[in-house]
């Protein structure tokens, strides 16, 4: 494993990858490496939790292995599975051979399908393992995951125990659709990801959209901060604000072209209810207040 980076270095490298971190997040990432514990990121949808894992993989120059959770996710889809079709073919093809030989053959590495969790512990260099939306998986899976995260070894009955060649950097994300178990929470370090503050959001826009005018980026960031305080069914996240800003690149001021702003709102407000609630006057007022 490479030597752990300190907080400043992480902040610098994150910035170099185009991810604009807040200081506390850099601290959390430094700590996660130092203590060798998984990091649980919680926050609203669209605040950039998944982006954090991608950026972390980039600063370490390693692979990102992602496990997307869903209801009903089980070991076969998350850890490993035998390639049954090939096994059946092999049995047919070797009919008449010594049964022991055939068995040893079909339960060998060549017939093993690696799923994300197994892949993550068998890498040469420690990868970043992103377990996305853990709250969507069932509680039984959570318990199984806990076991894996504490010893980093997997037992495959036909093959034996596989111990991690390198301990991955584990990041879990949750949208809080379900309460996670206390055991999992205690196992993990925790960071709550909030919508970015206006100055940070402006920096994100500038980093991602180099063509954008600095004053406009600041204005859009302030506008977003005000918009998120309105009573919306679906609060726009960072991805939405990037789309919104991208469609306005070229302007110097939001007040310059109210029609363009109104058209660009489709990138931000995605339910009919929200569109109805924010009448043009309301938008005009928010724009005026953000100038």
């Amino acid at each position, binding site marked *: 494993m490479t030597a*752990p980076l300190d907080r400043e270095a992480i902040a610098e490298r994150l910035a170099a990858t185009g991810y604009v971190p807040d200081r506390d997040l850099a601290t*959390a990432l430094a*700590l996660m490496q130092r203590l060798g514990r998984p990091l649980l990121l919680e926050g609203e949808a669209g605040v950039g939790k998944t982006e954090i894992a991608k950026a972390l993989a980039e600063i370490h120059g390693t692979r990102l292995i992602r496990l997307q959770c869903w*209801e009903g996710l089980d070991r076969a889809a998350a850890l490993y599975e035998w390639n049954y079709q090939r096994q059946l073919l092999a049995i047919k093809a070797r009919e008449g051979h010594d049964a022991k030989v055939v068995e040893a053959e079909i339960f060998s590495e060549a017939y093993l399908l690696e799923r994300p969790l197994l892949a993550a512990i068998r890498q040469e260099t420690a990868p970043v393992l992103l377990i996305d939306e853990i709250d969507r998986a069932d509680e039984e899976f959570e318990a199984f995951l806990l076991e894996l995260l504490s010893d980093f070894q997997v037992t495959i009955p036909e093959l034996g125990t596989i111990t991690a060649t390198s301990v991955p950097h584990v990041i879990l994300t949750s*949208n809080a659709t379900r309460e996670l178990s206390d055991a999992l*929470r205690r196992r993990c370090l925790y960071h709550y990801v909030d919508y970015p503050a206006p100055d940070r959001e402006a920096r994100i826009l500038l980093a991602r959209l180099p063509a954008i005018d600095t004053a406009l980026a600041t204005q859009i960031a302030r506008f977003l901060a005000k918009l998120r305080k309105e009573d919306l069914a*679906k609060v726009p996240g960072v991805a939405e604000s990037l789309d919104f800003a991208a469609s306005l690149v070229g302007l110097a001021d939001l007040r310059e072209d109210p029609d363009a702003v109104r058209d660009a709102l489709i990138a931000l407000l995605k339910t009919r209810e929200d569109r109805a609630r924010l009448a043009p006057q309301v938008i005009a007022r928010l724009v005026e207040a953000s100038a």
Partner: protein
Amino acid sequence: MRPAPAAMPEIDVPAAIRGRLAGFVRSLRMNGFPVGLAESRDALAILAEADLARPAALMPSLRTLFASRPSDWERFPEIYAAYWRARRTGMRVTTSGASRTGGLDIRSWPGPQAKPAIEGVPDRVTRTDEAEDHAAESGDEAGSRRAGGSRVESLAHTDFRHLTDPAEIEAAHALAERLARRMRTRLVRRERIARRGRRIDLRRTLARAVEHGGEPIDLVRRRPRAKPLKLVILLDASGSMSVYSATFVRFMHGVLAGFARADAFVFHTRLIQVSQALRERDPVRAAERFALLAQGFGGGTRIGAALETFNRAYASRTLTSRTAVMIVSDGYDTGEPEVLAREMARLRRRARRVIWLNPMLGWRDYAPAARGMRAALPHVDLFAPAHDLASLAALEPELARL
């Protein structure tokens, strides 16, 4: 740079700082943070790291380590500041959102402060012994299907208002809880019997094929499991409901223990999520945590406003197409009925079913005349009484039909 924690058994931190850290850990525990030995050790490791122990980085580092949920995350800076600044005066530091609001009336909750004489709620619940357990078990049966012993029988049909004997109250609470758990097991059994195969399960088929010398003769099939039912309970904790709320707290505790996916909220003038508190295994501790959260009621009930909060802040996360929403309230709303009607309509659109339990419906000659109740009724799928255990038991088939 230091190596990974496994390689640093001895952590070089002065004794004075160790002591202060121990004090801080105590203060966190007092505030309900689940801090174990592993966390304390990691905290020492942080103090030994030059870059993390710097004043600007220490708070965020410890916060990442000790907090484990959004509410803790939010409270942490306050507790941190209070401890490290106030330590010289030796004051005890506890903060909680609820205690700041004041004006609490905790008597009707079986919380730590509740005295035995008040409202007949026992302050400590002793573990029911074997014999009582059996009595309660059969009483559960009585509540749902057939008649049991006479005492139990009478319990099932006694309005919660009329229970006065502490032992009787505890028995009723335990019954309510067991009833909630039983509902779950019945529902699950139904799902399993209904299961029939559609897709071939290769793993099992191959395992079976060994018996036939490798010929997959028996095909093992499977079908995706039916999605389990999800239940969201909203409990009215206003003054007018106080005689019933203690029982429903136990009912909710049972539901949360039994259902894989359930959420509980309590409302009076505000809406508070209580699922976490009620997930506590021990019912008495759960009720204590619940009482702490539910402090500060006493004003009027604003059902409409509470539902508005729910629809805005929680609905998108907690409601799915297989969610039943159960509202337990007497329908006395001090807010505008229009608001309640609008929010009920929004709720109805998102949830599979909306059930409204009104304890007063069990009273003789009661008609839902309260303005709020009338406004809400058009948007309710099932309007049922919930004044005694028999009426709670009658709900089970309704829930199974989802």
